[in-house]
């Protein structure tokens, strides 16, 4: 039977990546002085599975490399070797190496083995440089990667038959080994040229007999030239639990057997049997190589740099509840269908009930479907222990990372996009927030700084907190820098909140020296923009000497949006509800014209630029009195703008459809949705709107001052 092994590759890759993550996590939480057995076992098992899988599925480069990793881990596990920092570092680098080998294989490339070879040499040096157990483990285990078949075919076909004296231990049956099956196998390989004689010598008296024990012994005569290894294979599993003496039959018998025509005929087909098997395995191997490479390559091209898996693991509970919902929906549908035939006005009541039922089903179904895309945030959090470890070592700071709320779920798409901004924030906390150990000690704090990550759900959003107990944001420094960069005026008096908000402004960086870690041109403005593109928000609070706290709020999903419907002319637009600060009745007295072309709204003590939605999107509107209009004040990138609309309609959840995929990208519009009556409504991209209007707070403020 030929089986295409490539069908299991995707699962193998996914589980190997998971295994590597587990290894990494285990290594990071390991206490080098007193490693926890369970942690070491987990790490070992992960390496072990990757080795086993890669060997089985034909990735020998990975298997060979993983083998040395596993050997070392096995020694640690069995207590033959003490864990130390250099082994830990080597293991961590190896995790990276295995991951990249697998990624290259998955992308259909020939993996670059330079690093693997180098690391393997280091492992071998460690393993060899030590006592005998290491050698033995390495040597004893070494064969199983390349050598698949258990039989060592050292002896060729011996003589013309064998005599086998087989005396099993009485407990043989307790291991599930059944002599009759072994005889059957011998009969098979010798093509029934076999005689079996039982000996009752060991049989005790009936009263002394344990019915589950084996008291028989056998003498087996095989009168056919077969490979000695075939007999060895039959007894392979019992060789230690039995006396097995195999002798070649005498030369007289050999001669007589050789002249037997039946036997010579029989040797022929046997070699034929052997051949196709070998071919078959070859075929399987080459088949899956070609089969894998083609599709995987395509996939790799499509996804370019992102090796993220496109499949998603869903718990069976979620699927079950989904199936359940669909069942309910079908029932409601057939109920309504029946009602539709011979409908008359007397049945309106039932129709309404049916529709209410349908609404209920739809909502539940929607919730269940959304849940499928939800994954615990631990998928993102899990990469941070390594990051914190590496960064803190580079900077020679001492840092504890505390994670909580790892099981909080959020949409897979959101999760994929929130990773990078979080990395940036955590690097920042370590680089700028946490002080050097001596500085901390001098300030009366513990030498070890703490970075806390927390996630939880709050009113339909997921909230992610990044908190450190470092020096806190330096207000004077921020203000000074902002003046230098022309963001604010020297005389501007700002609240703490406004000062902290400055760090999110484009072109702002407080790092005194551009370090290895931060200050690489990616600023907090990018972080805020990325989060805003997920319809989320970020805020910061800080206290000098005590630390800073960043709070990210994100919608649970990107597929559905809480929207505010507004009317402009005959068109309906939708604002994301999160972006709306307030809506006010338009009042001419609060509108000022600045610099001759742009209107600003005086909103308490702030000036907010005003954009006319109908002008931006060329919507025909009848001239109405301004006083009837509404200004929707929205906030984006920390700036407010007032958007003039005709009318506020309802709020509702809308399903986002991509405009880009169905039409083309339109500036100022992030997507579209289909309303209940079937019309299409456009969703306003608030940050795009502020760019389009071409005005910003600063311009207006400076204009206002000049005026």
């Amino acid at each position, binding site marked *: 039977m030929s089986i295409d*092994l490539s069908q299991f590759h995707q*699962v193998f890759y996914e589980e190997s990546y998971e295994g590597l993550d587990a290894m990494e996590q285990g290594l990071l939480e390991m206490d080098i002085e007193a490693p926890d057995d369970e942690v070491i076992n987990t790490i070992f*098992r992960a390496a072990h599975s990757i080795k*086993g899988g890669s*060997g*089985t599925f034909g990735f020998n480069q990975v298997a060979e490399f993983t083998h040395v990793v596993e050997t070392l881990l096995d020694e640690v596990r069995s207590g033959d070797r003490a864990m130390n920092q250099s082994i830990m570092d080597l293991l961590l680098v190896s995790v990276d190496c295995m991951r990249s080998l697998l990624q290259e294989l998955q992308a259909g490339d020939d993996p670059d083995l330079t690093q693997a070879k180098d690391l393997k040499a280091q492992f071998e040096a460690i393993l060899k440089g030590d006592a005998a157990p290491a050698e033995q483990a390495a040597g004893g285990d070494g064969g199983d990667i390349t050598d698949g078949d258990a039989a060592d075919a050292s002896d060729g076909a011996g003589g013309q038959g064998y005599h086998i004296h087989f005396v099993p231990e009485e407990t043989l049956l307790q291991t599930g080994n059944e002599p009759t099956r072994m005889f059957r196998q011998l009969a098979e390989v010798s093509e029934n040229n076999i005689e079996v004689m039982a000996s009752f010598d060991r049989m005790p008296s009936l009263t002394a007999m344990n019915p589950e024990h084996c008291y028989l012994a056998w003498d087996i005569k095989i009168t056919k030239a077969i490979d000695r290894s075939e007999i060895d294979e*039959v007894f392979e599993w019992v060789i230690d*639990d039995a006396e097995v003496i195999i002798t070649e039959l005498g030369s007289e018998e050999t001669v007589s057997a050789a002249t037997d025509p039946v036997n010579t005929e029989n040797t022929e087909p046997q070699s034929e049997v052997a051949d196709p098997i070998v071919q078959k395995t070859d075929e399987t191997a080459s088949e899956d190589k070609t089969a894998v490479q083609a599709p995987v390559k395509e996939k790799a091209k499509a996804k370019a740099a992102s090796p993220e898996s496109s499949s998603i693991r869903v718990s069976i509970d979620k699927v079950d509840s989904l199936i359940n919902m669909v069942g309910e929906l079908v029932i409601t549908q057939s109920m309504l269908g029946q009602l539709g035939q011979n409908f008359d006005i007397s049945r309106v009541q039932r129709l309404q009930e049916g529709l209410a039922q349908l609404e209920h089903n739809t909502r539940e179904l929607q919730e269940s479907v959304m849940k499928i895309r939800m994954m615990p945030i631990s998928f993102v959090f899990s990469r941070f222990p390594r990051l914190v470890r590496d960064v803190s070592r580079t900077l020679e700071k001492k840092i504890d990372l505390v994670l909580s709320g790892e099981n909080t779920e959020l949409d897979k798409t959101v999760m994929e996009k929130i990773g990078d901004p979080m990395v940036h924030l955590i690097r920042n906390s370590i680089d700028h927030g946490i002080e050097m150990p001596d500085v901390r000690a001098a300030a009366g704090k513990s030498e070890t700084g703490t970075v806390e990550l927390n996630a939880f759900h709050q009113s339909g959003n997921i909230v992610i907190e990044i908190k450190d107990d470092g020096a806190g944001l330096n207000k004077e420094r921020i203000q000074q820098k902002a003046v230098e960069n022309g963001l604010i005026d020297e005389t501007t008096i700002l609240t703490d909140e406004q000062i902290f908000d400055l760090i999110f402004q484009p072109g702002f960086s407080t790092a005194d020296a551009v370090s290895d870690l931060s200050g690489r041109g990616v600023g907090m403005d990018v972080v805020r923009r990325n989060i805003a593109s997920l319809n989320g928000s970020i805020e910061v609070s800080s206290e000098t000497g005590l630390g800073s706290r960043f709070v990210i709020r994100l919608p649970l999903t990107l597929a559905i949006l809480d929207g505010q419907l507004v009317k402009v002319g005959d068109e309906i637009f939708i604002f994301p509800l999160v972006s709306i600060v307030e809506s006010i009745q338009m009042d001419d007295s609060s509108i000022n014209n600045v610099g001759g072309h742009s209107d600003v709204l005086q909103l308490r003590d702030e000036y907010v630029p005003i954009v006319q939605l109908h002008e931006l999107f060329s919507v025909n509107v009848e001239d109405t009195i301004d006083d009837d209009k509404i200004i929707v004040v929205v906030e984006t990138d920390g700036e407010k703008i007032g958007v003039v609309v005709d009318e506020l309609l309802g709020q509702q959840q809308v399903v986002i459809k991509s405009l880009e995929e169905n039409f083309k990208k339109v500036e100022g519009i992030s997507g579209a949705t289909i309303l209940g009556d079937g019309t299409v409504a456009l969703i306003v991209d608030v940050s795009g709107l502020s760019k389009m209007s071409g005005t910003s707070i600063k311009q207006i403020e400076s204009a206002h001052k000049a005026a």
Partner: protein
Amino acid sequence: MAKILAVDDSASMRQMVSFTLKGAGHDVIEASDGVEALKLAQGQSVDLVLSDVNMPNMDGLTLCKNLRQLATYKFTPILMLTTESAGDKKMEGKSAGATGWIVKPFNPDQLLTTIKKVLG
């Protein structure tokens, strides 16, 4: 056709084993660790158990010992899927009550040939 309990914590190995055995007409029950396997085994008898050695929660050797305690599994063939070809590991398996072993990596043909030894 035999009923086979396949135990492995690696989903890809489990799928490969299960696919191969089903392809050969066998009935396969899967478990991802010793604890799950033991639970499944308690409710029914099978003709063969194929188990990985290194697994979380309960490893293959412990599973083997526990299965041998069950009346219906006293003589059931139990094969360990192992990468350890070293002798002492095999002995450990034997003393836990394993019937034999299949050395990883193996291909589907090798798997089928080996299980033929203990079925029927």
